[in-house]
């Protein structure tokens, strides 16, 4: 395969996760009134981060198993 899609995908969702979780920690609680009082940025940010890291991990594992010439 030309470019392992899991690599850019993992990066992108890792960045999204960090952005959202970071914003969730820093942001004012008041904005979560509309999301039923749940800090969705923090929780979903963590979920996205996990997804991104798993995707990156899988891509790196494949790259290691088959070293490029």
């Amino acid at each position: 395969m030309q470019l392992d899609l899991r690599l850019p995908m993992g990066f992108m969702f890792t960045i999204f996760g960090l952005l959202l979780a970071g914003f969730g920690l820093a942001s004012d609680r008041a904005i979560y009134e509309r999301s039923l009082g749940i800090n969705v940025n923090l929780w979903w940010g963590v979920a996205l981060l996990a997804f991104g890291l798993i995707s990156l991990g899988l891509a790196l594992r494949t790259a290691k198993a088959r070293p490029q010439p």
Partner: protein
Amino acid sequence: MPQIQLGAIDYAILIVYFAFVLGIGVVLRRYVKNSEDFFLSGRSIPTWIAGLAFLSANLGAQEVIGMAASGAKYGMMTSHFYWVGAIPAMVFVGIFMMPFYYGSRARSVPEYLRLRFDEKTRGFNAISFALMTVLSSGISMYALAKLLELVLGWNFHTSVLLSAAIVLVYIFLGGLTSAIYNEVLQFFLIVLGFLPLVLLGLKDVGGWDGLTARLNTVATGAGYEAGAWTYAWRHLDAPSANPMGVEWFGMAMGLGFVLSFGYWCTDFLVVQRAMAAESMLAARRTPLLAAIPKMLFPALVILPGMIAIALHQRAGGFLPLGADGTPNYNLAIPVLLAHYLPSGLLGLGLTALMASFMSGMAGNVTAFNTVWTYDIYQSYVAPGRSDRHYLRMGHAATVFGIGLSVLAAYATTRFNNIMDMLQLVFAFVNAPLFATFLLGMFWRRATGHGAFFGLLLGTLAAAAHHGLSLPGDALPGLKGGFLGTVLRHYPSEMAQNFWTAIVAWTTCFAATIMISLLTRRRKSDAELTGLVYALTPRQTDAGLAWYQRPATLGVVVLGLTLVLNIIFW
């Protein structure tokens, strides 16, 4: 509706997404060496990517916005588009049709028609398909720009030109691979962007039980039995018993058989994704793999619509009202996004929405440039040139395909009726197509004349049926009845569409058989090897474990779909 204010974090997410989209195009550029790389990804895409792209190419504006709108308007019955329509058709295309598409080495659906039938059948399909894709891409662009104008207050022209420019750049650089990779990104973005919305909405209305209770009130308020919004099959015995205005036969035959099979089996936009797969086995598994997430998509795209209408009922007004006083169902998703998501997640949700519009456009553009270059340019304008020449033409076709889409987007703002009319004409062209493919693939006696004139008669039959029937209390015109007399009144547009498709398919099927029997067969058995079922060696999956075989996968997919149908009976 009140406009949404985006914060810095929302813009940051949007910008990161665009950077990755364009970055993928830039990286993939160096892998595009010949025309097959550009148009068919060099047939090197692994199954899971091809499968998700197969699913995602169809996940454009129409799907996300339209399915949520239907979920609000018709409730749970909308899931028939998935559980009766798409899934069985996807299993069929994977198991029965992919061996011909992939095995014949045809580079496009029209090219298969030329190999199997003749030049004129291919020409008819190629030209109508090319026009249709450019138009759909334009309509996608128009819808995105209108939505952004309404929801975010963004300038219409900026939105059109910006979305066109981004799609242009990444396809121009990376060709089909770029489009496919971005479709996969978009798939995950949609799932991960909309899931929190659905979960929050569901929690707010009190879970499935709370939603059912609300929707029962909606149903009785509209004059139906209490479960009309929450059951898929129970209210299908008569058109008057459900908001969709259809009965089980029209639904199963029109939507389930003709329309869905016609779309998933013959539309090059989706078939192209499987043709790009790395092997025959991968190509056959592509639609089957796509079917698994597809069967769960009602939870992401239909459920929000149902939640929106439940909230509308609870609060005595949630969706903005249109000019005629009915709720504007198309705004279900944007209104929910604005209602539940705080800055941050809101950016993610909007990015997902924009991604879906753009990949809808990109899918159309990649299908257009392939059909244009191989089936129109190489066949009728300049045959016998070098591969480099056609690769350059592919780049050029990407530019003018997007240019034409922009024109179509602007034409839509001025002449809404012309666009509706053209879409209607294309619906007439598409409705009978599946009959042609079915006969072509399973009956070696079907001839080129039979196929061409069968298609033509099927198209005319569709137009005639539409012209002689009317839905609801619509006035004669675009909605039907334009042939002077109205022979049949349908309870809804949906019912009329289903029956138009049934009439067109039946006419094409019967006409193709009759004309084929009356005309001489020109293709010998040898020429039809690999194109017709009886003359193609069976795919032997002997070397594969039972759970790796496409047939097993197909049975599992159909079994799971059956279970879903029973749960929501």
